[in-house]
C-alpha cells in the first residue's frame, strides 16, 4: 500500500519536475550559446516559479550581466546573496558586478568585519535559528513549570536561561543583518537615471546616477520615489520604474 502511494506521488509530481528540469536545461543551453537575453528570459520565468532558489537567481543575474543589463543583474545578485550569502560564487559575481557600477560588496559606512559576520546566515536561516531558540527556551520553561521534581527543575533552569539568551542574541543579530541588508534597499535599473529635487518632471534634475548603483528607498509620491544614494550620501526623487527592489 505504502509503495503504491509513493508511486502515485512520483507519477503525479514527475511531469512538473521534468518540466522544470527541461526549462533549466534550455536556459543553460541558451547561455552556453551566448544568447544571453533569451537565457535571461528563461531564467526569469524559472525564478518566478522558484523565487527562493538562490542558484536560479544567480543564473538569472549572470545572464542579465552578460546581456549588458547591469542594473537588473545587480538586483538579481542581491536576491541570490540574500538567499545564500555564504556561497562563494554568488559573492564573487555580486562583487564583480558591483565594481562595474563603482561600488564594493560591503556597503559604505559598514565595517568589513560587521558585514562578514552579519552575512554568515541568510535572512531566513537566521529567522529559523531565532525560532529554534524561541521553541527551546519556551518549551524548557513549560517543562520547568509543569515539573514537580525540584531537582529536575534546578537542572533545567540554566539550559532555559541559555536558550533564552541565544534567542535574544539572534534577535540582535537580526538587527545587524537588517543594517547590512536593509529591507528598503533598491537598485537603479535605468541608464543615465536622473534624480530630481521633487516627485515629478517639473522639478529640476539634481544629479544623475549610473545604472546598477544601490540606493535606499526613503519615501514615495505617486509613481515617484525618494531614494538616498548610499555611497555619495545624496538623495533625490526618481521614477519608481527606474528602481528595482530586490
Amino acid at each position: 500500500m505504502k509503495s503504491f502511494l509513493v508511486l502515485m506521488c512520483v507519477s503525479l509530481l514527475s511531469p512538473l519536475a521534468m518540466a522544470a528540469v527541461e526549462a533549466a536545461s534550455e536556459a543553460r543551453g541558451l547561455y552556453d550559446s551566448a544568447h544571453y537575453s533569451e537565457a535571461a528570459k528563461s531564467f526569469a520565468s524559472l525564478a518566478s516559479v522558484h523565487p527562493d532558489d538562490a542558484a536560479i537567481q544567480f543564473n538569472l543575474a549572470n545572464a542579465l550581466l552578460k546581456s549588458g543589463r547591469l542594473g537588473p543583474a545587480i538586483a538579481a545578485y542581491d536576491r541570490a546573496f540574500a538567499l545564500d550569502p555564504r556561497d562563494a560564487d554568488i559573492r564573487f559575481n555580486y562583487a564583480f558586478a558591483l565594481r562595474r557600477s563603482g561600488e564594493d560588496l560591503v556597503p559604505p559606512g559598514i565595517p568589513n568585519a560587521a558585514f562578514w559576520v552579519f552575512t554568515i546566515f541568510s535572512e531566513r536561516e537566521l529567522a529559523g535559528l531565532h525560532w529554534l531558540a524561541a521553541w527551546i527556551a519556551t518549551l524548557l520553561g513549560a517543562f520547568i513549570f509543569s515539573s514537580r521534581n525540584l531537582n529536575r527543575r534546578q537542572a533545567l533552569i540554566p539550559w532555559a536561561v541559555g536558550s533564552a539568551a541565544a534567542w535574544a542574541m539572534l534577535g540582535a543579530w537580526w538587527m545587524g543583518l537588517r543594517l547590512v541588508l536593509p529591507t528598503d534597499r533598491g537598485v537603479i535599473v535605468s541608464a543615465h537615471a536622473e534624480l530630481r529635487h521633487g516627485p515629478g518632471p517639473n522639478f529640476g534634475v539634481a544629479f544623475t546616477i549610473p545604472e546598477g548603483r544601490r540606493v535606499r528607498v526613503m519615501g514615495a509620491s505617486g509613481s515617484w520615489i525618494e531614494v538616498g544614494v548610499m555611497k555619495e550620501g545624496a538623495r533625490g526623487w526618481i521614477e519608481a520604474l527606474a528602481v528595482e527592489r530586490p
Partner: protein
Amino acid sequence: MRSSILLFLLLFAGSARAAVSISAALNRTSVAIGEQVVLSVTVSGDQASLPQPKLPPMDAFNVYDSGRSQSLSFVNGHMSSEVVHTFVLAPRVAGKHVVPPISADGASAPTAALNVEVLASAPPPNVAASRPSAAPAGSTPRVSSGRARGNDVFVTASLDKATAKVNEQVTLTVRFYNAVQLFGDTRFDPPALNGFLSEDLPPVRNGMTNIEGRPYQYNEIKVALFPVQAGRMSIGSAVIHCQVARLGARGDDFFDRFFSMAAPQPVTVQSDPLVLTVEPVPTGKPADFTGVVGQLTASAQADRASVKAGDAVTLSVTIAGHGNIKSIPDPVKPDLPSLRFFATDSSVVLDKTNDRVGGSKILRTVLVPRVSGDIRIPSFSFSYYDPQRNSYQRATTEEIVLHVSPGAPGVAMGTTPSSPLIPGLTAIADDIRYLKSSGSRNPLSAFLTRLADLGPWHALPFLILLAAGGTDWRRRAAGADPKGRRFRAALSQADRRLEQAALAQTDAPRAAALVDEAIAAFVADKLDVPTAGLTLKTALEGLGALAHPPSEASLGLLKSAWDEAHLRRFAPGAAGTDARHFAEETRKLLKLLDSEIRR
C-alpha cells in the same frame, strides 16, 4: 667605449629624425580662377602624437583648413601613426605658382615644392565666378540685411532660415558689393557670433552682377553656424574697411578717373545685425541623446575577421552624414573581459559640398583578444535629432564577430600579467563565474528555512508555556491556603458522593449512607473540622456561628435532609425509596448553602 656611445647617439639621433616624415600632394595641377585645388599633407611616424605641418605663406591662394584624419596601426608590436591634413586652395591670381615646401617639427625633411598652373577664367555676367551657391536658384534668404542699394560699396548679410533647432546648421552669407575700383588692402571684420559654433565654407566666391542697372563686383563669404542654445540669437554686423575711387566726383573721362584714383578715399561699410530664432529640440528625447543634430549613419568594421590571441586588431567605427560632425561623442567601449582595449583615436574628415557641413568621424581602437574562440563585439548605437524628419533617429552599427585562434604561449595579455595569482598561472581576464545547479542546499539550511516558514505554529510553544505557568500558579496558590482550598472544594467533593448515591438506588441503605456522608463532609469542609464526630447539632451551631451564615430556612432544610438521610440509612422501611430523587434534592440544597456561605 666613448666611440661606441657616440655611435649610439648618432644612430639614435638618426632614428629620431627618421621617426617623423612629411609629404604633400595636390589633387590636380591645373586649376582655373574660381575653382579649387585640394592640398593633402601627410605626417607619419612611430608615435601617437604627431606634429602639425607648418604651411608657408601662399600669396597666390586663399588657404582653408578642411580637417584632418588619423590612422593608427600595430604591426608586429610596432606602432605607426599617420595624420592627413587637408587644405583647400582657392587661386587668386592666374599664372604658374608654386606651393613651397612644407615642414613639421621633428620631420627629417620638408616636402617637395609643388607646381600649380592657375588659368584665367572669364566668369559669365550676373553669375558667380566660383562654384554656384548652395541655395536653390530663385530662392531668397529668410533673414537678410544690408546697406541701401545704389552705393558704390555695400555689405549684405543673410541667413538661409529664420528659425532653427539647437545644433542645426544655419548658413550665414556675407556679400561685399563694389561698383568702383578698390585700392590697397581691404579688411574684413567678421560678425560677432556669440552663442554659435562656426565652420567656414570656403572658398570666397566672387563674380559680377547687375543691381538696378549698375554693374557690381561682389565677393561672397559663407559660414555654417551651429547655435548652441535656444532663444533669439543675435549675429553682429560684418564690417568692410576699404579704399575706393570716387568715379562720379570729377567725371567719367579717363583723366578724371586717373586723378581720382590717385586720391583714394577710405570707406567703412557694414551689414545690419541679424536675429535668428533658435528652438530647443522636441521633448521625448532618448536617454542617450547628447545633442547631435543632422542626418547620420554609423558603421563598424575590423581590419580582419580572424586573428590569433594576442595579436592586434583595429576596430573602426565610422559615423558619417550631415551635421556638426565634430560634436559627435566617442562611443562607449564595450565591457568585454576577453578583449584588451588600447587608446581610441578619432579623426574627423569634413565635407562641405553644397555648403552643407558633413563628413565623417572615424574612431579607431586597437584591441587585442586575450582568449581564443568567437568573440562578439556588440553593436554601438547613438541617438540624434533629424530636423528634416522632425524626429529622433538612431544610428546603429552591426555586431562584429572575431574568430580568435589560440596564440603562442605567453602571448595573451592578462589583466595583471606582471603579478600572476599563483606561480605558474597567468591571469588572462576577469569574468563572472559560471552558472550554478539548483538543489544543492545543505540540510541544516533547509531545516532552518522550513522552520522559519512555520508561521502561526510558532505560537504553540508560547501557549504551552502559558498553560504550564498557569497550572503551576494555581498549584502554588492552593498549597499556600489549604483551608480555603477545602472550603472551595466542599461542593465538588459532595457532588461525587451524591452522584454515586444516585447510581446506587437499588441499594437504598448504601445510597442513604452516601448522602449522609456527603452532607457531613460538606459541612465539615465548610467549617474546616474533621468529619468524624460531627453531629447535626454541632454542625448547625458551627454554620450559625459563621461570619456569613446561611439563612434559617436553609438551615432548616439542612436539618430535614440530614434527618431523612439518617432515617433512610438506619430505618430503610420507614422512609421513601426513591434514592435518585433524594440525592438530587440534596444536591440542590448543598448548592444553595454553598452560595449562601461565605468565608
